[in-house]
């Protein structure tokens, strides 16, 4: 099965109304614990897991994920170690790696794609690689059957959304609010319209992320028609503060999974 097919199957076989996709950071707080966190996500209802690779200058991330990346790097995190984490988690659940473009460019798109296949990863999200800069990445990932998952934002105009939606692989990462990653209170205003607009412009599943930090928000996002819900900063905060990060993150993930039943 190719990466794209694994992602497709994960969405089809989801147990909840929307597929639950927790975000974790590789090597945060350390390599071993981050593997345990990923496995705990899988055991507590995650349909897919998004594995972030720590980066020094994460422009799309808010303070929680930025700080986690800084700490992971300070503790010696590397791309290779992060790919080991992704590999261990991929054995339990389909994974998608989130990685900033410069780290991929450093290795080369083709070499990076080969590493992802080797690690059993199904797809890649590059938060700073918009459509215009993506052709080389798309070709390299397509050649390996991996999904280059694009992002769309509330600011993306319709014509552009259609173009991105047509080239989307795996799922369409739909950013719910204009802003960086981070927890936000209350329901995202206009989430129905955001989902509907994305839905109308692509044939792959629509997954919503950025700012979803409570089970209630996850539930209303599923109600709005999202086929996937991505939880990031809320879980990183848990991993950063809990005495037993993998158990604590697992509990929070379970709460989200229950809300999507």
């Amino acid at each position, binding site marked *: 099965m190719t990466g794209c097919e694994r992602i497709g199957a994960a969405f089809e076989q989801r147990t909840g109304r929307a597929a639950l996709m927790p975000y974790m950071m590789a090597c945060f707080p350390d390599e071993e614990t981050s593997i345990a966190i990923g496995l705990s996500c899988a055991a507590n209802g995650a349909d897919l897991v998004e594995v972030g690779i720590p*980066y*020094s*200058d994460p*422009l*799309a991330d*808010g303070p929680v994920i*930025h*700080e986690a990346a*800084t700490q992971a*790097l300070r503790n010696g995190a*590397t*791309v290779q170690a992060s790919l080991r984490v992704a590999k261990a988690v991929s054995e339990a659940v389909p994974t998608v790696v989130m990685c*900033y*473009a*410069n*780290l*991929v*460019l*450093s*290795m080369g798109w083709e070499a990076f794609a080969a590493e992802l296949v080797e690690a059993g990863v199904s797809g890649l999200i590059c*938060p*700073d*690689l*918009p*459509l*215009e*800069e993506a052709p080389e990445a798309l070709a390299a990932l397509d050649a390996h059957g991996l999904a280059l998952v*694009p*992002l*769309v*934002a*509330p*600011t*993306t*105009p319709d014509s*552009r959304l259609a173009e*991105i939606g047509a080239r989307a692989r795996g799922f369409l990462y739909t*950013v719910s609010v*204009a*802003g*960086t990653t981070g927890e936000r209170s209350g329901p995202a205003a206009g989430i129905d319209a955001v989902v509907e607009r994305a839905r109308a412009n692509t044939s792959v599943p629509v997954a919503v992320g950025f700012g979803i930090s409570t089970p209630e928000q996850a539930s209303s996002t599923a109600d709005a028609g999202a086929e996937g819900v991505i939880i990031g900063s809320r879980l990183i905060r848990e991993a950063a503060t809990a005495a037993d990060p993998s158990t604590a993150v697992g509990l929070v993930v379970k709460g989200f999974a229950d809300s999507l039943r």
Partner: protein
Amino acid sequence: MTEVEHRFGPFGGRYVPETLMPALVELEEAWVAARNDPAYEAELGILLRDFAGRPTPLYRAERLSELTGGELWLKREDLLHTGAHKINNALGQALLAKRMGKRRIIAETGAGQHGVATAVACARLGLECVVYMGAEDIRRQQPNVERMRLLGATVAPVESGAKTLKEAVSEAIRDWVASVETSHYIIGSAVGPAPFPAIVRDLQRVISDEARAQMLDRTGELPKRVIACVGGGSNAIGGFAAFLEDAEVELIGVEAAGEGLDSGRHGAPLTAGGRPGILHGSLSAIMQNDEGQIAEAHSVSAGLDYPGSGPQHAWLRETGRATYVAVTDADALAAFRRVSELEGIIPALETAHAFAWAMANPGERDLLILSGRGDKDLAEVIARTS
């Protein structure tokens, strides 16, 4: 009207979160429209003349020329309102923002000169202004922080990483991602995603347009070399632009060698070489480790303390049209004193790097872009040399 470059050779591009892409498209359209609108040119021209103090003089540095046996001409951007070339870009972009109906301005600053210039432009045009500044830079450039606050700007300290310019740019971009529909980001150097490097160059080009005409007027000839310091590279690209077609004019960018290129503690990605990388939305010469993590820069001057460089500089280096060299903290500090004593001009620590190189390598007829004045650096220099 030539089109707005997205790439300079392979360098440049738009490596930004999707949320910003429509804003970059809108900005490019607005910029093309403004440049073709005589009303914009006229309004900016009046602001530059009567508010900022253009044209700036071309000045023959008699005693330095005598000392080195060369001939050194200075383009006096230090005499501009706010004391540096940054005002050229800040006024141009603030006017542009107003045309676009954006009432809130975001900026980053290292040495504080761009922050002050943006705060001044916003005060003049009645725009809200938020300036991101690394906590370390706030410490070393306190007078500029006070100036910005006096001008009504909000100075937002940035505590991440090395707490200097790189983090300030990142934080400004994050703000813009969240506020893009109502805010414009006035980037301070010729860096960032397209169309910023082209816009900043076009707005700073006035430096070399004036200097080229002034050199011809005063000496009947073009300079043999144009020398400018390079952090992100806005005064350098503005100082080079009008000379790009004059193949006989050598263009020299002076970066910060910090504690020495071999120490790894420097701000000289163009001089040090290495593979290109992506920083703050464009592909250019940057400082990074083997895996592509961005390295921390180091320089005694906050304005050169940056691990990236403008994409057009990377291309000028690659094509051989411009040459890049680097000067250490120690040599820059020595030049800072020497220029003050010999010419009665206190240069910015950034510009002191260009002076140090020019004094060590005197030329027959050099034009040096005196990008800013050094009052802001007094406390730091005194602390380091006493």
